[in-house]
């Protein structure tokens, strides 16, 4: 097994049974999860919502990737990702979102993971697997960059 750099995904930042009443509520929960693992200051969460209001982070296949603004970067302590699944769905300006990948980044620690996520979203079967799994280990397995397997 090659030694792959660890993904910036803390097991505590995966919640697969979340519920949100609105898009902003879902984003706030993604932010609170990043806050809970010590990746950000609370101020970052407001910039995540601000960013979403200017341009949606919906990326297709029922997935959104909420993250902050350039100004919000100062409130990021380290690169981190949170994965929240909303089995009941969230209305994302008309698009039904089931999975949110919250992002806090100072550097490029999250790039491999996002790159893998893009590959998953281009493959409807894998996108469906990611949307439907209730198993955190499976989320890790799916997001692990293929080159490291």
């Amino acid at each position, binding site marked *: 097994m090659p030694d792959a750099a660890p993904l910036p995904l803390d097991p505590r930042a995966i919640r697969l049974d979340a519920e949100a009443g609105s898009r902003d509520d879902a984003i706030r929960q993604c932010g609170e999860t990043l806050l809970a693992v010590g990746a950000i200051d609370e101020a970052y969460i407001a910039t995540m919502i601000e960013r979403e209001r200017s*341009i949606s*982070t919906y990326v297709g296949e029922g997935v959104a990737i909420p993250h*902050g603004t*350039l100004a919000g*970067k100062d409130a990021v302590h380290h690169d981190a990702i949170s994965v929240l699944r909303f089995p009941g769905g969230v209305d994302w300006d008309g698009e039904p979102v089931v999975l949110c990948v919250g992002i806090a*980044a100072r550097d490029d620690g999250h790039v491999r993971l996002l*790159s893998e996520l*893009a590959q998953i*979203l281009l493959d409807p079967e894998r996108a469906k697997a990611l949307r439907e799994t209730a198993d955190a280990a499976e989320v890790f397995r799916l997001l692990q960059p293929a080159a490291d397997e």
Partner: protein
Amino acid sequence: MPSIDSKDVKKIVVACDAGMGSSVMLASQLRKSLKGLPVEVEHTPVNSIPADADVIVCHAGLADRARASAPGTLLVPFQLFIGDPAVTKLVSTMKNGGTINA
């Protein structure tokens, strides 16, 4: 309207607000799609687009800021982060040769 021949494109910049999320994702897709061609793909914040960018790819909602930041550089706006027709067209022109128009 600016245009550029695909063989003169050495650097494509994917611009977004924070350079944190969607632009990173799109840049990685472009890099994969254009692998083997002599072109570099970068992602940068929209207000610090490098002067040697030949083509800027950015979300339509950021196009005005990108134009203000790099006037005169060819800009390809898109709406969808995955599978946007404008990006697909850019990739196919880069691969097959031809003129890229705004």
